[in-house]
Structure formats: C-alpha cells, structure tokens
C-alpha cells in the first residue's frame, strides 16, 4: 500500500521557494472558481476582469505599483522589528501619524519653499512622528517589559483619531463644503510622478530602503547585533550588547520607516490629509513581511502581488461582484499562500514500503 508522507527537506529548495507560491495562487483561483460559480457569477469573466484590472494594461500595472509602494515600505518597517522578535503591529498607526506630520509641514511651509526643501522636511517629520509612535512601546518594553503588541495596537487608534480630529476640525479646508479634508498641498509638497501615471518617487524610496535594510542587517555591526539579539537575548548580554538600547532603537527605526509610508501616501497620492489614507496597509504589511520571511528583497515582490490583489479586487466589483466576494477571493489566496508554506520546508513522499 502506498503511503503519503511529509518529509522535512534537507535544505530549503530555491525552486520550491518559487514554485510553491505560484502553485498556491493557482489553487486558490481554482477554489475561487467554485465559490464564484456558486455565487452565480461567471468565473471566466471575473478572472478576466481581475487580471485586466491588476496587470492587463500599463495603467493597471501602474495602479498595482501604487498600492504596492506603501505595502513595501510598511512591510520593511515591521520586518525590522520582527527580526528582533518585537511584535510591532502598529504600522497602521505609524503610517497615520507620519502622514499627519508630513501634512503639517506641507500645509505650513508648502507655499514658501521649493520641493527640494519641502519634500525632505516632510520625510524627516514623518519619520520622526512614526519613530515616536514606535519609541513609546519600545521604551515601555525595554524598561518595564510591557508587551509591545498591545501598546502598538492601541496606538493605532490614537493616531487615526488624531487625524480625524484635525481634518474634521482645525485643519479642515474651508472650501471643502464640509468634507473632512485638509486643503490640497502645494505642488512643491507633492512627490513627482512617472509620466502621467500615479506611480511616484516613493517606489524608488522603497527600493532604496530595502537595499539599505539588506546591507544593514547582513553586513554592519548593528545588523549583527540585531541578528544576535533577535535569536537569543542571553547570548546578546553575554556578548556585551546593549539589549535595552537596541529594543528602543529598532522600534524607533521601524516606526519611522512606517511613518515614511504615511508621508508618501499623502504627498504622492492623496495630496492632502484625509480619512482612510491607509486602508489597512499597516496590517497587510504584517502578512507581506511574514510571507517574505522578513527578507527585504522578497518583500518588494510579495507587496507587488498584494497590490495586484487589491487593485484587481476593485476592478471585479465593476462587473457586479460584491465587495464581500472579492474579499473572499483575497482571503482564499492568502489562505493558500500560508498553507503552501509547509511545502517549502517539507516534501511529499509516496512510500510503498510498509513502515513499522
């Protein structure tokens, strides 16, 4: 009798690393097919729309990239913290507070300075704001062992409500006819875009951050410390590393990078501070980071896939598929991607010998 067994791979296979996710996505679409058919839709049509919407034209691709950029940056941000086993699930809040700080600069100095002054200033402000949002749970964790998961999560609401307060109140555009929006930023405070697409300079920024991240972790003393501390705090103390300081530093940088994701959204896409600048990028970024195994270069690619899913999802709604069905589709893809992880570490063996 043949038996199916899962055997741990001797080495992680690079081929499996690529093939498994591809197969997972295909299987997810097969299951999605059934779901769509049961819901009374024509799966062929829906998938066509999904593809066309996400990747079918230069415009579609540019939109996918637009959605992928904040996921890349926020994914890099959280994966830095995750490397040290610091569970920063507060990228969402760090994005909002970063957007808020960048908007403050844009609204106050935007008229009087050129882009070469204003854009870096916005970025620094966003980084500082996000960093402070990361530093608060970092300090609590470093000195009093307060669980950073809960604090980062709670700070998300604080940041989102701050933005709400400002755009409903003091920062509201007098000409917005009551909508909760700030005035539009001056041209100097808007990130340059590529051609007439919405793809903005944030893409380059994301790639630069990814490269710096990679080099930093792999080849610098500080990166070495992060790797040791993430694996084994007691080895870090034995090596004389300052664990307390580094918990704070890593949370600060992680929050700061996520803050930059907020800046590029207001400066590159909305051009003003408004509600919903992040539709949960900070949370999706956590999944992106894990699927990428915290590898910065993989994050860039996985974020692109998630961008495609988001954009494709919008397109599908145009043919009458409800928002919830598109969410089920996205969920299915996610489910299969995560479930497929096991086949990266294990291989299936059919054994014919009876094993006792």
């Amino acid at each position: 009798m043949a038996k199916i067994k899962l055997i741990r791979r001797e080495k992680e296979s690079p081929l499996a690393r690529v093939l498994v996710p591809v197969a997972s996505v295909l299987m997810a679409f097969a299951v999605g097919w059934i779901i769509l058919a049961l819901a009374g839709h024509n799966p062929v049509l829906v998938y066509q729309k999904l593809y066309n919407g996400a990747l079918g034209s230069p415009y579609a691709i540019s939109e996918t990239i637009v959605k992928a950029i904040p996921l890349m940056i926020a994914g890099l941000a959280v994966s830095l913290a995750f490397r040290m086993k610091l569970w920063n699930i507060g990228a969402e809040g760090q994005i909002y507070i970063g957007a808020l700080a960048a908007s403050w600069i844009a609204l106050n100095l935007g008229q009087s300075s050129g882009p070469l002054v204003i854009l870096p200033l916005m970025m620094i402000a966003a980084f500082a704001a996000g960093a402070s949002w990361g530093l608060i749970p970092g300090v609590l964790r470093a000195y009093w062992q307060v669980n950073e998961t809960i604090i980062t999560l709670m700070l998300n609401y604080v940041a989102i409500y701050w933005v709400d307060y400002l755009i409903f109140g003091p920062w509201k555009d007098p000409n917005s006819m009551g909508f909760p929006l700030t005035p539009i930023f001056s041209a100097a405070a808007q990130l340059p875009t590529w051609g007439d697409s919405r793809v903005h300079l944030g893409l380059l920024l994301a790639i630069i951050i990814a490269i710096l991240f990679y080099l930093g972790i792999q080849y610098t003393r500080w990166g070495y410390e992060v790797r040791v501390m993430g694996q084994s705090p007691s080895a870090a103390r034995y090596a004389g590393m300052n664990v307390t300081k580094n918990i704070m530093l890593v949370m600060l940088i992680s929050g700061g990078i996520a803050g930059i994701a907020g800046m590029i959204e207001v400066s590159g896409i909305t051009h003003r501070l408004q509600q919903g600048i992040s539709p949960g990028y900070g949370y999706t970024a956590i999944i992106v980071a894990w699927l990428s195994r915290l590898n910065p270069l993989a994050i860039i690619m996985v974020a692109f896939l998630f961008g495609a899913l988001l954009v494709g999802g919008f397109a599908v709604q145009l043919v009458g598929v409800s928002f919830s069905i598109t969410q089920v589709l996205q969920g299915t893809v996610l489910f299969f991607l995560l479930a497929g992880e096991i086949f990266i570490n294990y291989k299936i063996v059919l054994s014919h010998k009876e094993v006792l």
Partner: protein
Amino acid sequence: MKRTPVIEMKGISKRFPGVVANDNISFRVYPGEIHALLGENGAGKSTLMSILAGLYRPDNGIIKVKGKVVRLDSPRKALEAGIGMIYQHFRLIEKFTVAENIVLGAPHSPAKIKRELIERETEKISQNYGLTINPGARVHQLSLGEQQRVEIIKMLYRGCEVLIMDEPTTVLTPGEVKELFQILRAMSRQGKCIVLITHKLNEVMEIADYVTVLRRGRVVGEDRIENLDESRLTRMMVAREVEYSQVQRDKAPGQVILNVDRLKVRGDLGHLAVKEASFDLRQGEIMAIAGVAGNGQKELVEALAGIRPSSGSIEYQGEEIAHLKVRQRISLGINMVPEDRIGTGLVPNLSLIDNSILRNYYKEEFLSSFFIDYKKVRRYTEGIVDKYNVYFSDLKHPVNYLSGGNLQKLLLGREIEQTPRVLLASYPVRGLDVAAAEDIYGLLLKEREKGTAILLVLEDLEDIFRIADRVAVMYQGSISGILEVNKTSIEEIGSLMVGAQLTGVENG
C-alpha cells in the same frame, strides 16, 4: 533457558538530513535488566531511544514488545506498550503539585481529579520503590533530583515496564545519584527494565547488567558487564586510546590576579544567590568550584564576567573592576564559557562564522569602513576550527548542526583565541563523551601552562582531582571551604557540598 526479550528492535535505521543517525541497529532488553547504552556524541543513542519512545518513526526496521510486533507512532502508543522515556529536560509543570503532575495526561486519569486518591496512589508507588516524595509539594520547590523522582513515579503510574533515561545523572549530586541507583535496582528486582544513556563509565560499571555501544549509528559492541571494564568500553566507543589528562601540580603558585571579596549576587528571581563569596585566583592555576548545581555557581561566574550585577569587590591585578561592563572586562582578558552552550555561548541559528566573533565583533580588525569584513572573519573562523579541531560540514551552516563536543570546542576555542588572563568556564564537559571531554581538559591544561588563571565550575569530583589545583566548595550561596586538591579527599568535598562545616569535618 531462552527468555523472550521485553524489547526487541531489529534492523532499525533512521536518517536525518546529512547523517545516518541509526544504521541497521538491533537492540534487545530482557526483563529486570539495567541496560546501558553508550557511545560518542552523535553516535545515535538519543535517536534510537526516541524511536522506542514513539517520538521518531524509523525509516526501516521492526520493534517487538514481548515478542509481538508493534507500531509506536506516538509517545502515547509507546506508553500503552509499557515504554516511557525521561528526558534530560524534565517535562513537569512547575506550579502544579507533585500529585497533579503525576496524573496529568495519564491515559486512565479521571476527568475530575480526586486528591486523596492520587495521593494514595503516589504513596503506594513511592513506598514500593523507595521513592520518597511529598505528593502535595509544588514542583518548583523541589530539587532537580526530586523532580527526577517525580518523573519516574509519573512513568510508573502510567504502568511503564521499560524506563528509558537519557543522561539522568548529569544534574544530580553524588548523593542523589546513589539514591537514584537504589531506586533503579528496586525497579529491576520487580522485573522492570531500565535503559540508561550515559557518558559516565564508572556509573555504567556500578549499575548496568548489560551494555550496548554505538558508534556512528551502528552497534559496535555489546556484552554483559562482567566481561567488561572501563578501558575496554572506551576503546569500543571511540576506537582509540584516550589519554587522560592529569594536572602537574609541581609549579610554584603564580601571582594573585583576581581577588574577590564579600561578593553578593542576586539570582533571576531576585533572591541572594551568592550570599558571600571571598577568594583569590592565581596565575597558572585551575581552581574548581564544586557544589550541587543551583548553589550560586552560575551567578558567581556571571558576576565575575560582568553579565550580572553584583555588590562587593572584585579586584583584578589590584584594581577594582566590579563596576566594569562585559566588554571592558573582556578587554582586560576576562573570558568566559557559559553553562548554557547553545543559546548563551553560541547563537543556534547563526553560522559558525557569525558565532566565531560573538564576543569581539566590534573590534576594528573585523571592520572595513562601515561594514564587517566577512572575508577577514571567515579567515579568523578557519583559524579557530583548525586549531581546535572542530568538525563541521560548512562554515556557513548554523551551529546547531554541530555535535555537543564540537560546539564546546568552538566555544572554548573562541574564548581562548582572545588570549584570556582569566578564564571562567562552567561545566565545560557536561554531556560530552570521554574523548571530547579529554580534548577540552587538554585545552584547559594548556591554558594553565601559559599562565592563565582558570576558574572551572565542575560537577564530577573525580575530574576535579585530575584537573584542578584548588577547589572551592559552594553551598547555599556561600563558599564553605577552599582546599588544596592534593590535601583533601572526595569525601571531604562531598560533605562540604551538602553543608558540613570545614572545621567539623576536620575534627571528625
């Protein structure tokens, strides 16, 4: 008369990535037998017993229990077949009582646990085998020896006929070892079988009836204990003669390099783990610290290395260093090999290369502009593995693929390579096979020859007599005596370890 074995394993093979841990092994245990399973580090002992305990599935081979072929797919199945294993790290719930731990998870344990019933059961088992224990005590209050007894009772309560113990004596005091052996003998008299994995040959000679020796995954010898002696066992295990190191105590003592005065150190739980320690350490001497584990040795060593805060005075060549941080002490030449090899001394998932610079990665010599110069680091690592005979398959592989002996050589080599003036090492040969242990002692003696002052926390009293010049005995956080090794006896040290006063011993 031909008896049926209780356990018969035939043609067992088990492969792990890159190694054949068990290669066509046959293994039998007869009723009432105390069976010692020996072999070098990585020989496959734990793997074979984990297969018997239902933890691993063999790739090939069959297992018979009392003549019947069985499939042991899980530890529960193994227990149902009467086989139980006690691991080195106990699996008890610290906050629960002894009795609760005993019934927890037992196949026939009642849904609602009746205290008196359990305590009566426990009592019965205890008396039967001379396992004294208070069933109402909470596990975290117990010594390691007592916790081990709880594990044994737990297995007996589950109706276990074959008890496997993986290196059970490493954490015990000499007295506890004696008690354990009495318990095992009582069990054997009642027909139970015991499989004992150990590296300590004197224990094997004392307790075992039968010995099986593994090397590189194969059985290389087996015999009744009457036909064996320690040197034959060693030859079977390592296939060569092992030269036992012996310290030469003919040198005049060197100058005092470290002077510790009324040192107090707190443990992890905030209690005073070291209440008062005063001693000095001289160049070119090995001072052993003896004592039952958990009497403050770990905290003392960590305080000297600067990993743990302390109060009191530590003078290094006449200068106070108690306020100095880890790195400042390293740069003075105070190096340390911690008790927890993998997890503190080495980082399990990092490569040999990364691990070889754990304690000096910040030095300029490894840096080129912003980056760590991994070419240089690689050469440095190659130097260490060559000089200290570390066997490995790839410098880029994580260190947790290394065997215990090789881990320790890498760790000790790394510290020695930093040219220590004071070397602190805790349990440097714990869990190592005879040959690996002698390699480590050889390295330490060479350091002593170079004039390094060495402080060794050791558990094996016989080793202390071979290796050390002086011995300090720790008991309940204080040093209860410092003795010249060639002017004392194992008995004297043993009684100091359990709280006797130095003067009392001398008078008596």
